[in-house]
């Protein structure tokens, strides 16, 4: 809109201008729409719907609780029914030399190993301090030989220095991509 300069000497004062604002009135159509919207909102108020976030929280918590209850019940059923049934059907496995594949297992049967386990050994605390597992060592207790194609493997112990040890006779090649690959 082009600005038309107004002469300040025009006989208009501040009160006149403010009175001008009283003539800014919405149309009848506006009020019809206003009444319609207001009635709609008042009806919604009467229904008293909860805010959307409360509805979401309630819905999710209901589902989560329901799921958790079902899962817990399923686990309890599994523990009560399935586990004893599994334990009762557990029998020692007898494997003879003839049954065992000569290529894979050579030596004593599993039964011998089980019967040789004394009570003291069974109740003693397990020792995880083993540093060296030798595939070629004479495993008199278990009495089997498995050829893994390498001489020995050193396992890292709790000693921090062991992590830097690389005596597995395996070559660790670091690819340019940063991914390490173990090559036997």
């Amino acid at each position, binding site marked *: 809109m082009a600005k038309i300069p107004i002469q*300040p000497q025009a006989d*208009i004062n501040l009160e006149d*201008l*403010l009175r001008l604002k009283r*003539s800014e009135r919405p149309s009848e159509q506006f009020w019809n729409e*206003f009444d319609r919207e207001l009635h709609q*909102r008042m009806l919604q108020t009467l229904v008293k719907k909860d805010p959307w976030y409360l509805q979401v929280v309630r819905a999710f918590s209901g589902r989560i609780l329901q799921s958790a209850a079902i899962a817990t019940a399923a686990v309890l059923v599994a523990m009560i029914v399935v586990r004893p049934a599994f334990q009762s059907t557990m029998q020692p496995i007898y494997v003879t030399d003839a049954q065992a594949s000569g290529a894979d297992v050579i030596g004593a049967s599993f039964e011998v190993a089980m019967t040789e386990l004394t009570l003291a050994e069974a109740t003693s605390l397990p020792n995880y301090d083993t540093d060296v597992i030798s595939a070629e060592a004479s495993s008199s207790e278990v009495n089997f030989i498995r050829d893994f194609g390498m001489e020995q493997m050193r396992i890292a112990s709790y000693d921090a220095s062991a992590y830097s040890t690389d005596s597995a006779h395996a070559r660790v090649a670091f690819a340019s991509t940063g991914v390490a690959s173990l090559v036997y």
Partner: protein
Amino acid sequence: MAITGAVSKAFAHAEEAPVSERDLDWSVVERVQAGNVGAFDQLVQKYREHIFSVIYNMTSNREDASDLTQETFIKAFQAIARFKGKSSFFTWIYRIAINTTNTFLKKRSRRRYISYENINEEVTTSEIFERLTAKSRSEKGALIHELQEKLNDSLQKLSPKHRIVVVLHEIEGLSHSEIAEITNASVGTVRSRLHYAKQQLQTYLKDYIS
């Protein structure tokens, strides 16, 4: 303050509200409180234009004013069971409107676009139109719109507490004591704020008014 013609009809309730309208409103409120929800519509019809006018002149935005006016009536509807009639319904609903508007203005980080209502030319013509020194009717119409724009801009420059006093006194035609009751301020404070606000408006509009 002289209020003439259609304006006086629209704003006459404000002068009478504390005396006679108060009892009339209270009887309607009691009906609503008794469960006659439809009676609330009488209060809406009676006060909607005045509430809209206050909010519109506080926000200078037609759509915001419409939303906030609805919100005001919804709040009043929700709280009417707790309304004990210690003040008039008129004062109570104005207070809700002003609090709702002030909350909105605090949340509104920056001014939105301004959308004006059309000016009712019947009133304009009789009040100011003939006083403008522009020659043609179209020029006078353009001047009126420019004045409207400048006045709204100037009102928005005032702080809310000064703006509300100007709006309630100069536009709504309420007395100092009524404004004091609505705004929880003393009559002296209302007078002081009104004086300061009008001084500020005179400064902002010095190029347009005598």
